[in-house]
C-alpha cells in the first residue's frame, strides 16, 4: 500500500481567513443576525435602547442644578431637578453631623482606607498596627468624648491576649483561653472605665462629642456596614468552627443560632434592636439606638458569615486536616495555623459578597427611624419645597449604592478568577 505514502514538500504559510469570516461583518453576522428571529430580536432591542436613551436624554440635558424648590426648578427647565441633590448633598453624606466637624468622618474614612490597605495588599506588617488600632480611633473621631474610653476598651483585648499568651505555661491551652476571656471580661466590667477616667483627669485629650442620633446619610451606611462585617468576622469564625465541631452541645447551639438568624427577616431583628433589646439587659441599661442596631446587625451578619466560612472549611481538602494532625498540632493550633488561613482565603470572595448584601441591607434601618440615605429622602419629599420629586432623589441614592456594590462585586469576581489560577 505504498500509494498512501505522502510527504509535504513545503509548509503552507498561514493565510488570512476569508473576508466573510473576519471583522465587523462576521461579528455582526454571528452576534446579531445569526438567524431571522435573531435579527428581529436585535432590531427590537436596539429600538428599545434607542427609545430609552432618546427619552432620557432631554431629562439630563435640561436638568436644573440651581434652584430653591421644585416649582422654581420646573420654571427654569424641562429636565431633572438636581438642585435638590445639590442643596441636600451634605445631608446625604453626613446626615445631621455638625458641619464644623465634617473633617472627622472624612479623616476616619481616610484612616479606614489606610487600615484596609495592609489587609488587601501585601504591605509591610507594621502597618497592621493601624488596622488593629482603627476601631478605637474611629470611635473616638466619630463620637468624640475622651480618647481614653475607647483606648481602654481596646486594652481589654490586650489584657485578655496577655493572660492567654503567658498563662498557657501554667494553665494549659484550654485553661489559658478561659482565663484570657475571663480577664478581658473583668477588665471591661470593672476596670476599664475607672482607669480611663483616671487617665482623662490627668491628660484630658478629648473631642467635642457628637450624638448617635446626629449621624446619618451615607456615613451611617458605612458605619453600620463596616462595623457589621468586621464584627461578624470573629463571631462568624467561631460559629463556623462550632458548627463543624464534633461536640454535640456546641454544635447544637451554633446551628440553632445560625438557622434562627437566617430564618427570620432582618427587619424583625431590627425591631428587636429598637424595642426589645433593652428588656434583655440589666434594668437601667440605656444606650443609643444606633449601638443597639449595630449589635443586632453584627449577629445578623455573623450567621451569614459563618455559612460562608463553613463553605471555605468544607472546600479545604481533608488531607490538610490529616497532615496537621500528623504533625502533632492540637485542635487550636491546627485551626489557627493550617485550617483558618486557607479556609479564610477561599472564603474571601464570599465574604465580599456578604458585605455587598449587608451594605444593601443597611437601608432597612430607615424603617426604624435611623437617617441613612433613604431616611434622609423621606423628610425631603415631605418638605413643601420639594414635594413631588421622585426620580432625582431615589436615582441618586441608587447610584451611590450601585457604584459601591458594583465595584465590590467586580473586585470579588476578580479575586475568584485570581484564586482559580493561583490554585493551578
Amino acid at each position, binding site marked *: 500500500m505504498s500509494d498512501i505514502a505522502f510527504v509535504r514538500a513545503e509548509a503552507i504559510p498561514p493565510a488570512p481567513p476569508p473576508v466573510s469570516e473576519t471583522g465587523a461583518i462576521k461579528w455582526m453576522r*454571528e*452576534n*446579531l443576525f*445569526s438567524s431571522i428571529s*435573531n435579527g428581529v*430580536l*436585535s432590531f427590537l*432591542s*436596539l429600538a428599545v*435602547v434607542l427609545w430609552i436613551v432618546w427619552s432620557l436624554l432631554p431629562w439630563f440635558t435640561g436638568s436644573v442644578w440651581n434652584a430653591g424648590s421644585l416649582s422654581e426648578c420646573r420654571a427654569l427647565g424641562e429636565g431633572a431637578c438636581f438642585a435638590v441633590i445639590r442643596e441636600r448633598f451634605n445631608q446625604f453624606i453626613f446626615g445631621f453631623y455638625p458641619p464644623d466637624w465634617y473633617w472627622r468622618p472624612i479623616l476616619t474614612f481616610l484612616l479606614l482606607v489606610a487600615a484596609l490597605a495592609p489587609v488587601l495588599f501585601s504591605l509591610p506588617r507594621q502597618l497592621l498596627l493601624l488596622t488593629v488600632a482603627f476601631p478605637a480611633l474611629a470611635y473616638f473621631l466619630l463620637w468624640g468624648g475622651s480618647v481614653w474610653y475607647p483606648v481602654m476598651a481596646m486594652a481589654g483585648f490586650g489584657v485578655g491576649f496577655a493572660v492567654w499568651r503567658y498563662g498557657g505555661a501554667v494553665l*494549659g491551652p*484550654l*485553661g489559658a483561653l*478561659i482565663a484570657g476571656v475571663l480577664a478581658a471580661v473583668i477588665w471591661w466590667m470593672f476596670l476599664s472605665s475607672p482607669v480611663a477616667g483616671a487617665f482623662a483627669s490627668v491628660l484630658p485629650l478629648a473631642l467635642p462629642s457628637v450624638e448617635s442620633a446626629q449621624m446619618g446619610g451615607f456615613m451611617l451606611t458605612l458605619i453600620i456596614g463596616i462595623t457589621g462585617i468586621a464584627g461578624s468576622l470573629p463571631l462568624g469564625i467561631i460559629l463556623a468552627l462550632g458548627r463543624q465541631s*464534633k*461536640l*454535640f*452541645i*456546641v454544635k447544637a*447551639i451554633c446551628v440553632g443560632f445560625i*438557622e*434562627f438568624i*437566617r*430564618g*427570620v*427577616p*432582618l*427587619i*424583625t431583628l431590627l*425591631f*428587636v434592636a429598637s424595642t*426589645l433589646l*433593652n*428588656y434583655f*439587659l*440589666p*434594668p437601667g441599661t440605656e444606650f443609643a439606638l444606633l449601638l443597639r442596631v449595630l449589635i443586632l446587625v453584627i449577629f445578623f451578619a455573623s450567621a451569614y458569615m459563618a455559612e460562608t466560612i463553613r463553605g471555605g472549611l468544607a472546600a479545604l481538602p481533608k488531607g490538610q486536616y490529616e497532615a496537621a494532625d500528623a504533625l502533632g498540632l492540637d485542635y487550636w493550633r491546627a485551626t489557627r495555623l493550617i485550617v483558618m488561613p486557607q479556609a479564610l482565603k477561599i472564603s474571601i470572595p464570599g465574604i465580599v459578597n456578604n458585605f*455587598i448584601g449587608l451594605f*444593601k441591607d*443597611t*437601608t*432597612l434601618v*430607615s*424603617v426604624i427611624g435611623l437617617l441613612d440615605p*433613604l431616611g434622609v*429622602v423621606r423628610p425631603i*419629599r415631605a418638605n413643601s419645597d420639594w414635594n*413631588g*420629586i*421622585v*426620580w432625582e432623589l*431615589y*436615582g441618586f*441614592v*441608587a447610584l451611590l*449604592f*450601585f457604584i459601591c*456594590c*458594583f465595584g465590590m*462585586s467586580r473586585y470579588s469576581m476578580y479575586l475568584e478568577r485570581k484564586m482559580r489560577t493561583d490554585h493551578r
Partner: protein
Amino acid sequence: MAVITDPQKEPFRIGMLLSDTRYRSLTIQVIVLFLFMLFAAWVVDNTIRNLDALGKSFSFAFLWVPAGYDINQRLIAYTSQDPNIRAAVLGILNTLLLAVMGCVTATVIGVMAGVARLSKNWIVARLMTVYVEAFRNVPLLVWILLIMAAVNDTLPQPNAFRGENATASMVLWDHVALTNRGFYVPEPLFTRSLGVIELGFMQISLDFLLFVGLLVAGIVASLRVGAWADAVQSRTGERPAVFWVRLGLVIGPSLVALLLLGFHLGLPELRGFNFVGGIHLRDSLLALWIALSLYTGAFIAENVRAGILAVSKGQTEAASALGLHASRVMNLVVLPQAMRVIIPPLISQYLNLTKNSSLAIAVGYMDATGTLGGITLNQTGRAMECILLLMAFYLAVSLTVSVVMNAYNDRMKLKER
C-alpha cells in the same frame, strides 16, 4: 510466651477530665452548656425584672382583644372589631399572597433573563447584563420606595379620569386604569356562578375550587398521557406526538368551564371620585410585587445562568456526537443536570423573597410584619409577644422550606465513588 492484654485502664484522676480524650469532650460540653444556661438565665432574669419595673406581663391574651384598626386588603372577611389574631392571620395571608405572586413572576423573569444572558445575540445578552447588575447592586428597599413614589407622584388621581375633558384616560382599550392609588384591572365574573361555601370564619368561591380541581385533574391526565407515550415509545420505539393533547388536557377543561359559567370581564368603572368594579391592585402591593419580582428575578437569572454554564461543554458535545439534535440535547442531557444546580439556590431565592416581603412595612402594605409587628405591636405595646410570634411565623416558613430542600438534595445527589 507473651500475653497480649488490653491497654491498662488507668484509675480515674481529676486531671483526666481535661487530658483524657474520653472525658475531655464531655468536660468542654458541660462547661459550654453551663455558660450558655448562665447566659440564658441572665437574659431571662433581666427580662422579668424589666417587665416588672414597667408593670407589664408576658401574655398572649391581647390576641383575642378587638384589633381596632382597618386593613384595606382582605383575603378573608375582616372588620376593625375582629380580634388581633384575625388581623395577624390576614397579615400572614397577605404575606403569602405577595410571596406567591412574587415567586411566580420572579421565576418567569429570572429564567428568561438568565437564558437571554447566554444568548448569542450580543445586544440581548448585554441588555440582560445591565438589568441583572442594576437590580443586584441597588438595595431592594430603594426599588420598592422608588416604584411606590413613582406610582403615587407621577400617575393621575382617579378623578382626573372624570368628565368631558378628562386629563387622563384608561389604557388597553379602556380595560385598565393606572392611577396614583394603584392599578384597576378587569376582574373575572361569571353569569352562572356556582356561589360560595360558608366556612364560618371564611368564604371559599366554588368557581375558584372548580378551576383548581379542573387544573389538577388536567395535570394528572396529562401526566398519564405522558406515561402512556413513554410506554408506547419503549414498546415500539416511536414516540406518539402528544404535546398538543397534553396541553389541551391541562387548559381545555378550564376553557370549557369558562364558557359554561358565562365568563366575562368586570371592567373598572369610574363612579364619583373613585373606580369601582374590577380588581384594585393597590399601590403598595404593586410596588412590592414589581420590585420583589425584578430584584429576585435578577438573582434567579444569575442562578439559571450558572446552572446552565455548570454543565460542561463536553456533555453537549457528547450528546451531539451521538446524533441527538439540539432540543433533545437540551431536554435529555443539559436540563436534567442544570436543574440540580439551579433548584437549590432557586428555592433559597424564594425564601429570600418571602423574607424580603417584610419590607412591606415601609410602604404600608398590611402583611404579617405590618399587622403583627406594626400596628398591633404599637397599639397593644406587647413588643415581646408580637415579635416572638412574627419570628416564629417566618422561622416556620424557613424551616419547612429547608426540610423540603434537604430532602430534594439528598434525592438528587449524583452518585459517586
